[in-house]
């Protein structure tokens, strides 16, 4: 249990998927303009990342490994992710329309979010157990949420007070902000590890 908790904290602080592994940057850049979109997207990401990791683990360990087809795990993972996202969207739309309008609209954007695939790939590379996979996936997604929420709040603040040089507006200043945050997050280095 303690191990799982460590893994969770590590995935947020020391091995933050956005700030350390630099993943999920496209939505990070485009959806961090307001807190509203950032929050919606990150909740959707938390849900999908955890769900797909939980689905991919049994598929990998119960189907691909016994049949010695580890070679194709990328394809399988990405298909599973795409299908899951689509299914979740359909279910949401049918049964939970309010949820759909708040978070569901971000689902189509998630398929191409590298975080989702990356978490599943990390799960294979680091040979996590099922519980560890779920915990790591959840932690990573929460870490991504923390990062994008900070940047979104900073962006909103900058929209009010900032006077960013023209060429820096948009992507570039987000990179700089993320860089400084990443710099600060290095302070957690050595505190906990994902292994």
């Amino acid at each position: 249990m303690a191990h799982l908790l460590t893994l969770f904290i590590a995935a947020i602080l020391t091995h933050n998927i956005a700030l350390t592994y630099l993943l999920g940057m496209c939505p990070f850049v485009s959806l961090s303009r307001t807190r509203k979109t950032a929050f919606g997207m990150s909740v959707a990401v938390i849900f999908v990342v955890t769900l797909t990791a939980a689905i991919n683990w049994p598929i990998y360990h119960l189907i691909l490994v016994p049949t010695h087809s580890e070679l194709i795990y990328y394809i399988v993972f990405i298909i599973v992710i795409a299908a899951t996202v689509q299914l979740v969207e359909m279910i949401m739309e049918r049964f939970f329309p309010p949820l759909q309008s708040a978070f569901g609209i971000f689902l189509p954007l998630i398929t191409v979010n590298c975080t989702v695939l990356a978490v599943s790939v990390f799960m294979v590379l680091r040979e996590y157990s099922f519980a560890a996979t779920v915990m790591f996936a959840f932690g990573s997604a929460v870490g991504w949420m923390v990062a994008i929420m900070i940047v979104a709040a900073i962006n909103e603040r900058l929209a009010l007070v900032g006077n960013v040089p023209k060429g820096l507006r948009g992507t570039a200043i987000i990179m700089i902000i993320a860089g400084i945050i990443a710099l600060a997050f290095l302070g957690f280095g050595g505190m906990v590890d994902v292994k």
Partner: protein
Amino acid sequence: MKAVRSLLDKLYTVPQLARFKPVIGAADAILYGTNETTHAAPHVVDNIDIKRYMSLVIVALLPAVAAAFFLFGWRVIAIIMVSYMAGGAVEVIFAIIRKHDIHEGFLITGLIFPLVLPPTTPLWVVAVGVVFGTMFGKEMFGGTGRNIFNPALVGRLFITIAFPAIMTMNWQTPFASGPEAITTATPLTTFKSTAQTSTINPSVVEAGTEQVLFTNAGAVKKATQNPQSEFAGVQVYCMGDAAYEKAAHHRRIEEGKASRLVSYGDLLIGKEPGSMGETCRLAILAGGLLLIGLRVSNWRIPVSYMTTVFIFAAVGSHFLPAKIAPPMFQVLAGGLLFGAMFMATDPITSPFTKAGKYIFGISCGVLTVLIRSFSGYVEGVMFSIVIMNAFTPLIDQMVLMFKYRPVKA
């Protein structure tokens, strides 16, 4: 003085210097004040302006600068000069390109930045740090008043991560010079390394123990009173004067085997190695209290910051003495006082809501103790403040969200 006036007037009209108008304007404003009057109501305004506001911070920093000069010598002045020149150049270039006035905020960045550096920092590293800090920490966001992060800390953080060997291994013992004055340890480092090799606050000192570390006087008393304790040949380290006094004069501890790991009195007056400005805690306290008294900085952040560190360290060191240093030590050691008094209170980069200020201070305190105790870095003040700088807009927006209910139009 007439000559200066006419020289300035002449400079304004030289077409070749049109680009450097911000520089001339800044000199003019500093020398002569403004001739602008209010346009409409309020017709009479407060006499304070940003220049005075900022210069008061400099005044408050002067004790620390003087102490640094006294403790570490002329190098301090050199580092401050380099910081001002390199950072000032960045400021001037941006002011010229972006056609705005030179803002006074830089005066503080240029002084705070050198004060958080080890006195042995090579001058080129100082320049790299201040250039990076001013540029990435401030100018890219639009200059003073528009930045999100404390520029001095961003610079310091950058060179800490970029040049770990230089920034964490070379410290200078106060009042000393020459190669023998260089030490690798600050009090925080000493605690961390001693705690790793010693038995900490044992209630029974068992035979065969080589080193014990007592973090408070109570622990010394408890161990010495226990009849089963065996102090023969045991090296005893004590934190603070009270514990040391108890151990040094105790009959069961061998003569000369008790030593003082750190003296709180020395920390207070600055006799322990550390960054230039942060060693003399008395000078910092004087400056910080002056600022709070003048209402230039808000008391909420430093008070909540230091209280949190104290409480968290008190609780933590009770349960995990090997990791978390005792509270008094935490508050006095490292850059905590300096950070809490001069950097966490920077109004631009800390929350403007009252509740936000408390949240900021408390989070900074928790993060500082956590990073000091568990991460690979010895000092956590600058990390925690920059992390909380990043959270500042979020904190403010959350507080406002709870304070003001949305309106349906």
